[in-house]
């Protein structure tokens, strides 16, 4: 059933929007765009889920992968049969799709937990880390990018560009190790690992309905020591993850501001005697931000990949950290569940980002 919608969706949704753009020029109906864009999520998620499912099943059944060699063959066969992994692959596939539609990601093999529970608990930690990373990226990347555009082709511009490339060229885990070495080991001002010290973690456990976003939970305890503890633990991972994206933002802001600075309306303002600095800040900056918003959508994917590495570096117990643990335990059911969940997250964020871009810039609604 999902197959037919997925395949027929694409041409249907493209044709009318094309026609519309041709007949009416720019503009267009926002509501219609949102619906079309929403429907496009389905084939994207469907393709990724199918791909991950097929790839993970190429290596055989998950039970042999996890327990092979540790159980006698007859017991192994029994467990495979009980879990239904000896049935034809397409039956398993449709069953899996059916489970996913109801929000059931399955149960892990090694720890026998609901994968959806793991995803929501650990996902909160990853969300928190990604949030810190984005804040660092904005604070560092956007002002420096504007500065580089303003000082274009002079030496500070060259330095800033090399800095941006350095941010990008440094793998997040190496950046993390360096930051740790300097601030935790040599200067001893920030904690080495984890999301909070054990005492704070204990305090947070006692809240009813913890969100598992430690910053929110810490504010709910109202204890300043807990808030400070959570924040000091966040600085290094946030920086490690954020600087990577900051480099990309810096480059993008620079490129786009330079692009808009060459436009006629900026020339017009210049000829009226508006100063160069004001041109960058007031005239060229805002239009230059639109492409950045659309690019953030792609950054989400990079940020998630970076989060996996950052979490491993700092023992930040989020989804990435958990994913790596399950990979090491060869629990491929859990790996598949987490990867599929992340695919949904990426598709939905891209959708939201596209809608925001369409709200800001009517030209996007083709």
């Amino acid at each position: 059933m999902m197959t037919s919608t997925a395949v027929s969706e694409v041409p249907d949704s493209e044709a009318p929007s094309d026609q519309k753009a041709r007949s009416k020029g720019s503009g267009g109906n926002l509501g219609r765009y949102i619906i079309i864009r929403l429907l496009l999520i389905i084939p994207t998620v469907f393709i990724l889920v199918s791909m991950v499912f097929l790839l993970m099943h190429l290596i055989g059944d998950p039970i042999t992968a996890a327990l092979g060699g540790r159980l006698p063959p007859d017991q192994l066969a029994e467990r495979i049969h009980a879990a239904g992994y000896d049935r034809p692959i397409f039956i398993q596939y449709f069953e899996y799709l059916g489970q996913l539609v109801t929000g059931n990601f399955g149960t892990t093999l090694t720890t026998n937990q609901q994968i959806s529970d793991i995803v929501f608990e650990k996902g909160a930690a990853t969300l928190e880390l990604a949030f810190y990373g984005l804040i660092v990226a904005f604070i560092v990347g956007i002002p420096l990018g504007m500065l580089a555009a303003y000082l274009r082709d002079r030496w500070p511009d060259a330095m800033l560009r090399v800095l941006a490339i350095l941010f990008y060229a440094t793998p997040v885990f190496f950046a993390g190790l360096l930051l740790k070495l300097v601030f935790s080991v040599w200067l001893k001002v920030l904690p080495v690992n984890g999301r909070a010290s054990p005492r704070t973690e204990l305090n947070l456990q006692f809240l009813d309905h913890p969100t598992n976003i430690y910053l929110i939970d810490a504010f709910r305890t109202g204890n300043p020591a807990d808030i400070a503890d959570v924040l000091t633990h966040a600085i290094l991972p946030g920086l490690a993850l954020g600087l990577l994206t900051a480099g990309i933002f810096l480059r993008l802001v620079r490129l786009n501001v330079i692009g808009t600075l060459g436009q006629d309306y900026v020339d017009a303002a210049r000829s009226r005697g508006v100063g160069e600095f004001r041109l960058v800040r007031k005239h060229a900056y805002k239009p230059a931000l639109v492409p950045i918003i659309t690019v953030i959508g792609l950054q989400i994917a990079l940020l998630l990949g970076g989060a996996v590495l950052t979490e491993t570096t700092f023992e930040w117990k989020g989804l990435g950290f958990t994913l790596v643990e399950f990979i090491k335990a060869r629990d491929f059911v859990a790996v598949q569940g987490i990867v599929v969940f992340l695919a949904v997250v990426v598709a939905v964020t891209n959708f939201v980002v596209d809608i925001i871009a369409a709200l800001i810039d009517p030209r996007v609604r083709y």
Partner: protein
Amino acid sequence: MSTPVIVKPSIWSRLPLIRELKQSVGWQRGMLIAGLVIIAIFLLTAIFAEWLAPFGYSQLSDENGTFGAQLPPGGAHLLGTTVGGYDVFSRVIWGAQTAALVIIIAVMLSVFAGVILGLVSGYFGGWLDRVLVVVADAVYAFPSLLLAIVMSIVISGGRSGLFTGLMAAAISITVVFIPQYFRVIRSETVRMKAEAFVESAKVIGASNARVMFRHVLRNSTRTLPLILTLNASEAILTLAGLGFLGFGIEPTAAAEWGFDLNKSISDVAAGIWWTSIFPGTAIVLVVLGITLVGESLNDLADPRLRTRHRALTSGAGQTDVDELEENL
């Protein structure tokens, strides 16, 4: 795209890179040259690793007995030894060879697959084209590291020797990059298909294959060098990321920087800095070099970004000012 070149400059000055080098001025030239120098050093290190490295990548002892673990830099071990008792300097040198091999295999495979798919998809169109575009977009939007992890589980089952490890890393990276080449080549092909010279070739009776490879492909590869450099740097980062998460190549099979960084996590907390800083710096330098070249090529291809020559030096040789719309 068909730019009328009236006076052809000499072949030497039309070679890629040489042409760009001549075109560049000021900081841009500095960045391009710095990048090229770093890449040259990296490649030379990779080629001559056997002679440059004092010890083998998996060597634990010499005639004076075992090396000992976590020795600080100095003496027989220029950059110290790791927790496993390997010589850091030798592993950094050998790591260049692994990195270079993986990049070359990964980039070649993905260019090959991406170009063929893009060409066929763009040229013939139809339902195959639609399906491929949706698949490519889906893969493109997905976190590349996760995809590479899934691929390396599939290829090597999570374990890796030398050849399987190298190939697993390379193929994992390939799958991630194919959509990028696919998208670029497909959109160029769709554009080229409408050109008059393609139609005239068809009228003469040229076969589809001939039109595709001789007329369309030759004119669609303009942006490839740029994506190639960007991908090469991404390939190193993905390889290192895989290694860091434990999908690397076993230390007895080859040296891999990401793997060494993974082993150094616990060293860092104990203040042992030499096991992480040197392999990490090697990664940063190589990515930096490749990205510097890629960025410079990008700027030089875009007239809005090119630092302008003073009036007397510009002029000839700058006929192609068609815009390179890089899709970010």
